[in-house]
């Protein structure tokens, strides 16, 4: 079995790819992992104990054809049975062309476009209502005047965020304008101004079977985060109401594939912040406590029966750390000149 995985940028803003690959390898050492990388310096390209072979791809902004051609090339030259995309920017393409991949003999397990749209920040208020949870007051803004109006109405502190990426807590108008400019320059419009929800940040990783059933759920609390809000240390929790919300989400929308729910919880009040239609970068945490979602998703792709239990213990901690890997410049040169590692 050969599985391609993207998001192997295991940096201080890590992609989920290494966690996915590690989960698959630990479940079945015979699985070969192919890293799909957008940068020759992605650490995953050099982590040959997790990624067997890497290929450089063109950015998703170049459209589907180059990506599809590359995957066909990988299938022909190395072999490829399935692909697990993990980055937000590439997901719309993989979702749109999942049938084409299937016909080419490359399996995926992804939501459809309609399901994918649910996680758009414009739809989160409706989703929250259906799930009987809260959504913070949010204003969509396109220019500085609208930004001023929105922050006046919502008050400080508030959150200035992009529609898909980046979110910053701001305490003053100059700060709001600074991040409005930074995010819009990088990711475009709209920019969202959102009230700050009070409580603990609790997240759930899970996967749906596409028929309303869950393939497993694990809830965690972020204990420490990076300056971008990415989890560094975390602890597993058993928040029954939050896990029920995740289960309801899978059931109501017949969610297919992996997902992450980001919530703020204050006592019994659950506020939905984001739905990510992919594995989070901390997916290995779930694997480590006994719920190997990447392997379950892979098995479901191939019609195998999988365990769907979410039995894990609360109070298990994930501790991230940094590590240095020493390699030869020739490995970089192979990637830079041939677009693929030796493997």
């Amino acid at each position, binding site marked *: 079995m050969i599985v391609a995985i993207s998001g192997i940028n295991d940096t201080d803003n890590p992609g989920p790819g290494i966690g996915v690959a590690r989960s698959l390898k630990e479940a079945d050492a015979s699985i070969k992992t192919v890293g799909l990388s957008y940068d020759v310096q992605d650490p995953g390209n050099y982590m040959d104990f997790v990624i067997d072979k890497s290929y450089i791809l063109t950015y998703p902004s170049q459209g589907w054809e180059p990506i599809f051609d590359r995957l066909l090339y990988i299938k022909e030259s190395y072999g490829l049975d399935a692909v697990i995309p993990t980055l937000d920017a590439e997901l719309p393409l993989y979702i749109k062309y999942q049938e084409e991949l299937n016909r080419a003999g490359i399996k995926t397990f992804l939501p459809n476009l309609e399901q994918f749209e649910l996680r758009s920040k414009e739809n989160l208020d409706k989703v929250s209502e259906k799930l009987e949870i809260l959504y913070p007051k949010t204003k969509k803004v396109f220019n500085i005047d609208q930004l001023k109006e929105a922050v006046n109405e919502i008050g400080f502190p508030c959150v200035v965020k992009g529609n898909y990426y980046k979110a910053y807590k701001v305490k003053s108008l100059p700060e709001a304008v600074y991040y409005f400019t930074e995010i819009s320059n990088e990711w475009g419009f709209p920019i969202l101004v959102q009230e700050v929800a009070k409580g*603990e940040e609790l997240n759930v990783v899970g996967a749906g079977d596409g028929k309303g059933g869950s393939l497993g759920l694990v809830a965690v609390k972020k204990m420490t985060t990076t300056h971008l809000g990415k989890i560094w240390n975390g602890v597993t*929790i058993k928040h029954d109401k939050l896990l029920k919300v995740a289960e309801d989400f899978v059931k109501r929308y017949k969610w297919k594939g992996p997902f992450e729910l980001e919530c703020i919880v*204050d006592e019994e009040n659950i506020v939905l912040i984001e739905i990510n239609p992919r594995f989070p970068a901390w997916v290995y945490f779930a694997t480590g406590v006994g719920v190997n979602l990447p392997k379950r998703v892979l098995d479901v792709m191939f019609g195998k029966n999988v365990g769907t239990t979410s039995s894990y213990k609360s109070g298990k901690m994930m501790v991230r750390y940094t590590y240095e890997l020493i390699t030869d410049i020739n490995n970089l040169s192979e990637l830079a000149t041939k677009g693929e590692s030796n493997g």
Partner: protein
Amino acid sequence: MRIENLAINKNGFAFDPTTGETFTLNDTAREIIEDLAKGIDEKEIAKKLSKEYEVTEEEAFNDVLDFKEKLKLYGLLS
């Protein structure tokens, strides 16, 4: 009452398995929480504490009430 679910170790480190919050408790706080979780009322707890710490029952009772307010503030007691 979330205090019933708190996992407290012998060093007074408390972990709330529902929310992932952690607390460090001194001996008295630990004793009061454990007693409240068992359903023992404030007067009984105060009586015990007054013997252990050589304070009047009234003082101990007020301290227990104060501490209960703190627990409410942290959302551990309703």
